[in-house]
């Protein structure tokens, strides 16, 4: 085998991993070029939301279940870390892990009854959960600081290095985001991932081939809640301030819109969806009062014309058209072969 062919096969076999490393390289070099804090701040926000939305995309996009409550898990992560580190002085990293585990338990308790529901009912149940979380954050002032929020959350530190600038946090959050991305890419390329994609399209058929539908829905719900919780903890340590309004049902809706713009089930699309929705307010500053309307319009238009979401929808259109063309060509080729066999094109 030639060296070129070997390299080519290696590239093909490890294409997903190589793309992730390439992305890491690009992301690592961005701050070397763009040093202004405004851009870095936006990229940090994108990184935070990428972590949460990747989880939600596994649940909503890949496994086909709707959640309008993920800002609740995001908020529990943020406030969990905020209260325990700022008020009680717990060390940030172990706290983050502990909070994520606690959120996993909450998600399990919420998920067991609600994931028996479908469609609108599941949407309502998760929305209700988010609403309850928001009310607790607002009302329980002696712990959460009430509507005015909680400040003085310590910055994270890695090996004695305090993550106290936008640039340092940039490298931290994108490391987390790339790990999350890798975990998601791994999951969807496994039997468990195929099972999730199968149950999203047909629960009965999935169960017939050995997918434990009930268990798998709960597992991916819990996993996505953990992702949101970790994103929330990072958020709290980055801004050193949390406020209940960041974790309202409208944030949940924004997270869903990010999934839809990125495309249902598209792990790569998530990067696009989050970036687009996070940057949109900056591009359309003159329309500030109408953000909610614009978000709503985007959602409606995409769901009307590309129900699988923007990126996935476009990719599907291309995939299906290519497939149709190939099948058509195969059909006409077979016809030509038949004609040759029959001697129709043979000349004397």
């Amino acid at each position, binding site marked *: 085998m030639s060296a070129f062919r070997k390299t080519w096969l290696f590239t093909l076999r490890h294409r997903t991993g190589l793309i992730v490393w390439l992305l890491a390289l690009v992301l690592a070099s961005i701050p070397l070029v763009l040093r202004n804090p405004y851009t870095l701040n936006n990229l940090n926000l994108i990184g935070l939301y990428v972590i949460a939305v990747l989880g939600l995309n596994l649940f909503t996009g890949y496994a086909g279940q709707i959640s309008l409550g993920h800002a609740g898990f995001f908020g529990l992560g943020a406030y969990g870390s905020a209260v325990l580190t700022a008020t009680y002085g717990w060390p940030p990293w172990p706290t983050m892990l502990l909070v994520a585990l606690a959120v996993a338990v909450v998600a399990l308790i919420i998920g067991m009854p609600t994931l028996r529901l479908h469609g609108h009912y599941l949407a309502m149940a998760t929305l209700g959960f988010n609403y309850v979380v928001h009310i607790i954050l607002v009302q329980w002032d002696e712990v959460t600081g009430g509507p005015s929020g909680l400040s003085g959350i310590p910055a994270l530190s890695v090996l004695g290095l305090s993550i106290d600038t936008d640039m340092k946090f940039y490298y931290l959050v994108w490391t987390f985001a790339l790990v999350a991305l890798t975990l998601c890419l*791994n999951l969807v390329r496994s*039997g*468990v991932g195929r099972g999730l994609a199968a149950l999203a*399209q047909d629960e009965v*058929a999935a169960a*017939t*081939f050995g*997918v434990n539908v009930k268990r798998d829905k709960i597992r991916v719900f819990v996993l996505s809640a953990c992702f949101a919780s970790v994103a929330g903890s990072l958020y709290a340590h980055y801004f050193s301030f949390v406020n209940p309004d960041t974790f309202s049902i409208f944030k949940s809706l924004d997270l869903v819109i990010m999934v839809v713009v990125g495309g249902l089930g598209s792990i790569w699309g998530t990067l696009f969806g989050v970036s687009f929705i996070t940057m949109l307010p900056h591009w359309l500053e003159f329309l500030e009062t109408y953000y909610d309307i614009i978000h709503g319009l985007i959602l409606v238009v995409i769901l009307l014309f590309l129900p699988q979401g923007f990126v996935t929808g476009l990719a599907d259109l291309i995939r299906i058209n290519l497939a149709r063309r*190939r*099948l058509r060509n195969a059909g006409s080729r077979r016809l030509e072969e038949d004609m040759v066999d029959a001697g129709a094109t043979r000349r004397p």
Partner: protein
Amino acid sequence: MANSTPPLIQVSNLTKHFGGLPALDRVSLTAARGQVTALIGPNGAGKTTLINCLTGVLSPDRGEILFDGRDLSGLPPHEITRLGIARTFQNLRLFPRLSVLDNVLTGLTIQAGSSMLEALLRTPGLRHRERRLRLTALEALDTFGLVDKADLPAGTLPYGDKKRVEMARAFVSNPVLTLLDEPVAGLNSEETGQIAALIRQMRLYGKSMILVEHDMDLVMSVSDHVVVLDGGKRIAAGPPEEVRRNPLVLEAYLGRMSVTA
């Protein structure tokens, strides 16, 4: 027969009502190892209900299903799959957005393992297993003549190909028993011939099958044993030639035809 091995499937007095109407009424039947057992009967005879009870999609009201001597009642579908029962669906139930290869790979869900941690970390063990499963799936696609369409979305295939993807997905896991629910419904005679050849091939490989079908030519040409249902009751059972001449069977089919004609 003096043979002491129990039948692969033994259904006794299976009863299932839908809102007071009996879909299955004390049906008993057996299916032997390594044979094709056909289940026939007019529309509404209860064939699909029986298949759904066998796979755990429905739970019967009364009666017993023994698979390899083991009682299946109360087991959920994914547990029954684990015991080695696979099926195809009467109305295609492919996953349209997954590729043909991934559709067949869903037939290997049990073999792929269900550890989420292993999947998230993509351990070397899982990587190795995935590669082996892909080869198994590609082999199945080759057997069913679909290997050149492996990477196409299943939803884009023509109907006849979709039927064969369903069969490949059912047989890929090397199941003990395969339930084929109307595998040739809607196919033309050439495609029907292909499916018949595939069923015979699978029988040569020693596979046990239960075939639900309306196409009498297919049933007569591929099955070893025929069970006839009508109105939720078993009205006849035996070798194809014998069943074909059974007056009760003729009445169930022809009698109804003369009423509707």
